[in-house]
């Protein structure tokens, strides 16, 4: 409901005239009243306008609370603001990112059909970024009543006239502290003096749009985050699937390997038994028909078959070490080493000094770690056998990365470092059979066990200057 300033209705005037009884005085009173009335009317018009502006603002704010996209908010706001201000064009101009505020375009607009649209045209103003952006960022508002009479640069005038702008009111759209774009009110039909109420109104609208921009930015960030999380989740799922597949494949391979070793264990040994058995049968049943050379050959055949039988057994042991289940427990390596050394000492009267560091506790599979120490210590025992006096040491040293390296050191025949990489290959030997017996499977076994514990094994040595074998057991592999 509109207020009205009509003081001079017939009833009031009649009453005043009755009171006055003087035509001249009455005319004077009428004049005074008319003056007041005009003032009131102006005030009331102003108040009504404010009420309308408040309504528009209220609409804009209400819309911000609704789950609307930026485009809808901009469009509705442009329409309402244009109606409110009776302007010819209201547009939201957005700067391109990284253009240094020199380039951008209108992303939303409401325009009087008599004038052209400013939408979707790339607008370049090479002086804007440099000269004006900083000011707008501070909240500067530009109100131009007539672009031809404001001292604007030629290029600026040219851009504005392109859109038939005669007067404009430009308020920054800030997203947080950043100049996102401009809210532009254009008057195309004629110049226009922008009053302070209008400017304040547009400023408030721009503030609220800034809030909408901020919300939109937060939403976009959230969406990016959600998308990233979903992608990460998908990657994890894919990875898991891959892992599952790999596990399944590994299980199949393991099964095949088991079947293979089983068949090796059965089928490779059977012909060997025949060769050995019938060679012996020849020696026993037909001895008188064989001369010593013939007998020697048969013995060689038998010893070779037996060695091959041993090799097959060793290979099987090696493969069993690789596929047996692991049971991790705390293992006192010092105790294990002492026991092994005591057993070795029992085998002969040799003078060997064993030096074993106390209380070396490790996490691992007790049976497998015993195999490691047995192999390393009996190697040390074997390769010191030509010494009158020998010293065999078991201990641990800290590594650079803080983990522990265990070692078995001897002062035996050593080896040539040039061949150190060959030490751990199955059936690799650095000494002749006649020198030191062995089948070359011990260190290969050690390496496999250490690898299964997530560790590393290596050796140092020199010919005739002893050898040291190191191994680590990585903590991470324990869980």
């Amino acid at each position: 409901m509109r207020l009205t300033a009509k003081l001079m209705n017939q009833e009031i005037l009649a009453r005043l005239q009755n009171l006055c009884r003087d035509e001249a005085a009455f005319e004077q009173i009428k004049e005074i009243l008319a003056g007041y009335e005009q003032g009131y009317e102006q005030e009331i018009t102003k108040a009504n306008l404010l009420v309308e502006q408040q309504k528009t603002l209220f609409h804009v704010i209400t819309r911000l609370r609704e789950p609307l996209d930026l485009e809808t908010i901009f469009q509705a706001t442009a329409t309402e603001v244009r109606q409110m201000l009776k302007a010819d064009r209201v547009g939201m101009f957005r700067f391109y990112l990284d253009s240094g505020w020199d380039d951008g375009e209108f992303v939303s607009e409401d325009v009087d059909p008599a004038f052209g649209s400013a939408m979707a045209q790339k607008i370049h103003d090479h002086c804007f970024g440099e000269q004006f952006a900083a000011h707008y960022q501070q909240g500067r508002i530009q109100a131009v009543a007539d672009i031809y009479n404001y001292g604007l640069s030629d290029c600026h005038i040219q851009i504005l006239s392109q859109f038939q702008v005669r007067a404009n009111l430009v308020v920054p759209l800030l997203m947080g502290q950043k100049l996102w774009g401009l809210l532009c009110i254009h008057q195309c039909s004629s110049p226009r003096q922008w009053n302070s109420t209008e400017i304040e109104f547009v400023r408030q609208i721009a503030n609220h749009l800034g809030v909408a921009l901020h919300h939109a930015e937060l939403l976009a960030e959230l969406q990016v985050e959600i998308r990233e999380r979903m992608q990460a989740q998908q990657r994890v799922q894919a990875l898991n699937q891959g892992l599952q597949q790999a596990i399944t494949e590994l299980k199949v391979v393991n099964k095949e390997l088991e079947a293979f070793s089983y068949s090796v264990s059965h089928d490779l040994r059977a012909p060997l038994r025949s060769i050995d058995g019938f060679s012996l049968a020849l020696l026993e049943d037909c001895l008188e028909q064989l001369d010593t050379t013939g007998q020697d050959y048969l013995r060689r055949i038998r010893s070779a078959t037996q060695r091959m039988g041993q090799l097959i057994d060793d290979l099987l042991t090696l493969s069993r070490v690789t596929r047996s289940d692991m049971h991790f427990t705390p293992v006192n390596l010092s105790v294990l080493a002492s026991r092994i050394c005591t057993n070795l000492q029992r085998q002969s009267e040799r003078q060997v000094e064993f030096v074993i560091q106390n209380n070396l506790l490790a996490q691992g599979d007790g049976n497998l770690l015993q195999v490691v120490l047995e192999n390393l210590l009996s190697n040390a025992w074997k390769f010191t056998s030509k010494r009158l006096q020998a010293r065999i040491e078991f201990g641990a040293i800290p590594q650079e990365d803080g983990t522990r390296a265990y070692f078995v050191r001897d002062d035996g025949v050593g080896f040539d470092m040039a061949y150190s990489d060959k030490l751990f290959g199955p059936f690799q030997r650095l000494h002749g059979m006649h020198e030191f017996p062995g089948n070359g499977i011990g260190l290969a076994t050690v390496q496999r066990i250490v690898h299964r514990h997530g560790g590393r094994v290596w050796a140092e040595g020199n010919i005739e200057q002893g050898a040291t074998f190191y191994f680590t057991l990585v903590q991470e592999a324990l869980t």
Partner: protein
Amino acid sequence: MNVTTNNKTILLVEDNPDDEALAIRALKRHHIGNEIVVAHDGVEALDYLFGTGMYKGRDINIKPTVILLDLKLPRIDGLEVLRRLREDERTKLLPVVVLTTSNEEQDLLNSYSLGCNSYIRKPVDFIQFSDAIRQLGMYWLLMNEVPPL
């Protein structure tokens, strides 16, 4: 000296002719003169024991004193033969010695849990093999009191 045969039969279940010949030779060399019946796979072994198939009509009351059973056999394998023997009232107490090339832990466990009486791995060294056969023969044919069947 020949050990008295006293009608005690050995059932040798073995598909490898070399192993068969060597086992028979070893038994002979150790003067174990018992009758040796050879079955070349699991089916033949079961036929012999239950009087079926190629042994249809055989008097199954005449039972072997000991069965030397290889595990890896054509058609029906050794473990299955053992299982069926132990399931049947007529054969469940027959002494069975598993004689195999395998020393896989799984085979050992399976054999014992199915109720074999002994498990011997055929060594490559024939002297060891021969010795194992001799001990087997001595134990099962001479020393062991067989359950009344």
